[in-house]
């Protein structure tokens, strides 16, 4: 039975891995609406989205963990599945002996250190450390930065061979900081998994540590039964090195529910068992909270697990109560014009609270104007998405980024809602405008403005027309800023709205329909 189950797990895991990765790769992006639902089932985004509308996904992940332990890690986590793939490949280069695993002690110091690093700031209202250690978001950044770059290269190779049928695709703006960070995580995870399989998941990953803590109390756990003859087959295939043969214990906090041990055991000794039945019968009413003697080691673990969960729980309560002792006072100092949050972000604070910087929005943007922030939002907004109008502007009819976000850090918006979402407002500086400086016609901004917040009016004393800006209608799409030819400083520059607003609807301008019977010449 476990063999079948394992095959199902492997196939599903590969499927999820593929679908998740495709969300970040350009050629599949036009199908984002079909692919993006798989992104909802990610632990850290769902955890953060608890109060923004993705609670149901968090509840689902919590329930499967309470039932069967860290199923997420082996089935849904793309970074986890990637490690399985790497260790499979690495196995090809290993001798039979090298492939054999054995029990290893947990790296508890590192585990709880990283968990603390991720969840303690969260409890204080700072999401960034968790975002940067979230396995899904790391995979997102790796896909967005490295895999899609490879795909882009291949695409352009085809564009070179078939210039008339495959178009050339410019490369996304290269931002060294995020590239180095993603490459570092990729190399770290690759090396760790090539040598020690799921070590990363059980030392670095805070999601793994939290899920492991919850798993300690799960209803069904892999356990060794009395049929065991100590052949050690299970422990040689354990990715997490968590089967302690001597004590006949499986460390469920590290077990990623890969089912390897159960498929290996010829005697059917290692199986999922209901964890509370026997204990309750034996120790009766005393069972709750009581620790059996000779298990001090495990009681220690139990305490740590409770602490981790307590910490994560506190973090969630703190979020619910909007407890934010370190709310940055420097917000006003952040340079305004470059910190425009994508539509749906509601406010820069909402983005900082909920975004895990997975870069799905960055990948899906057809105009490639969403970029990872490096300093634009300040330090606590590192790698969060922001809009940059240097190479294009926000498409008026496009709402792709709001649709793909896994946890409503960008809340979903219909095209109609998005057309009124004021993410910033253009500012017109006459002294830079071509019409003013050169006394010649231009009108590039007016030409591009989708809402007609910009109109051209007669310019005093000349036969020229000059832009007039109605900032209440402006939605901050950046079309005017992008196209403005004035140098060195553009005449139209969009200033970010720290809190997104709803713009006034474009004026309705019905005109009398003229009936004409002649050519006029």
């Amino acid at each position: 039975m476990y063999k079948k189950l394992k095959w199902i797990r492997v196939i599903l895991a590969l499927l999820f891995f593929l679908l998740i990765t495709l969300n970040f790769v350009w050629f599949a992006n036009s199908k984002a609406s079909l692919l993006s639902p798989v992104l909802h089932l990610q632990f850290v985004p769902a955890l953060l989205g608890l109060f923004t509308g993705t609670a149901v996904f968090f509840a689902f992940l919590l329930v499967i963990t309470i039932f069967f332990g860290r199923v997420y890690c082996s089935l849904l986590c793309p970074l986890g599945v990637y490690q399985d793939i790497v260790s499979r490949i690495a196995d090809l280069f290993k001798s039979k002996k090298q492939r054999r695993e054995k029990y290893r002690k947990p790296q508890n110091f590192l585990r709880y250190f990283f968990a603390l690093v991720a969840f303690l700031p969260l409890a204080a209202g700072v999401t960034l450390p968790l975002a940067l250690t979230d396995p899904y978001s790391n995979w997102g950044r790796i896909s967005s930065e490295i895999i899609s770059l490879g795909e882009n290269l291949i695409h352009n190779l085809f564009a070179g061979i078939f210039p008339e049928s495959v178009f050339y695709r410019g490369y996304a703006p290269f931002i060294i900081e995020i590239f180095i960070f993603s490459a570092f995580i990729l190399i770290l995870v690759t090396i760790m998994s090539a040598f020690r399989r799921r070590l990363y998941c059980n030392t670095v990953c805070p999601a793994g540590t939290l899920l492991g803590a919850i798993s300690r109390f799960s209803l069904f756990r892999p356990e060794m039964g009395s049929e065991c003859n100590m052949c050690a087959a299970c422990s040689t295939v354990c990715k997490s090195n968590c089967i302690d043969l001597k004590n006949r214990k499986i460390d469920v906090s590290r077990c990623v529910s890969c089912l390897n041990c159960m498929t290996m055991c010829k005697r059917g000794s290692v199986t999922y068992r209901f964890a509370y039945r026997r204990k309750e019968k034996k120790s009766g009413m005393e069972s709750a909270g009581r620790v059996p003697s000779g298990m001090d080691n495990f009681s220690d673990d139990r305490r740590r697990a409770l602490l981790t969960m307590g910490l994560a729980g506190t973090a969630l309560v703190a979020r619910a109560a909007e407890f934010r002792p370190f709310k940055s006072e420097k917000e006003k100092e952040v340079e305004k014009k470059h910190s425009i949050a994508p539509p749906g972000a509601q406010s820069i604070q909402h983005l900082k609270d909920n975004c895990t910087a997975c870069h799905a929005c960055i990948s899906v943007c057809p105009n490639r104007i969403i970029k990872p922030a490096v300093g634009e939002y300040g330090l606590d907004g590192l790698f969060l998405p922001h809009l940059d109008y240097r190479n294009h502007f926000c498409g008026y009819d496009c709402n792709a980024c709001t649709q793909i976000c896994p946890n409503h850090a960008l809340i979903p918006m219909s095209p109609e809602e998005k057309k009124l979402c004021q993410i910033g407002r253009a500012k017109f500086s006459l002294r830079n405008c071509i019409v003013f400086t050169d006394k010649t016609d231009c009108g590039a901004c007016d030409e591009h403005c989708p809402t007609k917040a910009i109109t051209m009016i007669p310019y005093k004393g000349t036969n020229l027309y000059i832009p007039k800006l109605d900032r209440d209608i402006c939605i901050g799409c950046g079309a005017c800023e992008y196209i403005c030819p004035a140098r060195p400083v553009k005449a139209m520059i969009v200033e970010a709205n720290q809190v997104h607003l709803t713009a006034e609807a474009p004026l309705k301008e019905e005109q009398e329909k003229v009936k004409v019977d002649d050519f006029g010449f």
Partner: protein
Amino acid sequence: MFMERRNFLKGLIYGGVASIASFKSSTLFSKEPAAVASGGNNDLVAVMGGEPAQMYAKAIEAMGGISRFVKRGQKIVVKPNIGWDKSPEEGANTNPELVAAIVKDCLRAGAAEVVVFDHSCDHWQSCYKNSGIEDAAKAAGARIAFAHDEKYYKSVKIPKGKRLKEAKIHSEILDCDAWINVPVLKTHGGARMTISMKNFMGIVWDRRFLHANDLQQCIADCSTISKMPVLNIVDAYRIMTQNGPKGKSPDDVQLAKALFISTDIVAADTAAVKFFSQFRPMDINSVSHIGIAEKMNIGTTDLDSLSVKRIKI
């Protein structure tokens, strides 16, 4: 991408066949006289009251037939306005039915290949698709060319230009045998009107340069390039009379049901402005690139000096 590869292969086969055909025609049938349609060789034809394809058919006939401009075996570019991510009803782009009719006519006249492209302002794929032009042109047998990246453009000197002395022009224009300019009639906040001459902005890579260096002069300068269109066909089926050139709703558009066709780009624009003035007053002098172009001997605004045919359907 893979769909497009299939189209590529299709194109390869068709192209091969066509080039063999053209080879034959140039060697075996070289004495074949140029076909002259019965309609005569007018300089400017104005049509009104019909559907786009129907008006085109009438107009081109009165111009002496497409074979006066398109020769067997030639590579032709049809250059509409596909600037905006807007539907045909919003009138921001050239009418797709008109583009399709021109493409078909060129192929009927024996063109080896007809290419359609524009340097869009909005996201180019959305523009190509939502304008309806990509589908219509492909169905008519044209190839859609890309124009969204600088690598598709080549730098060209414009010796007669006053401000615009050099520009990157799309290589399909530079490599073709003849091209047909198919603008749509709209207002424009900067240039006042956008018609045939302004449509050249879509064959140029760096449009900002034009905006920054006396837009009206640069538009006229652009029409001094050696590779001028053999025909200018102004789509005035739906005309944008306010908030041009992008518009914000179908309210900005009036159904004018007209078409102008001319070998003289200045005359085509003059006729179009005069027609437009009936819907909304527009002083042709304020569309100053037209006047500048006339001074630069690109064409004439004096329609009476031309043989003009007016057709009402």
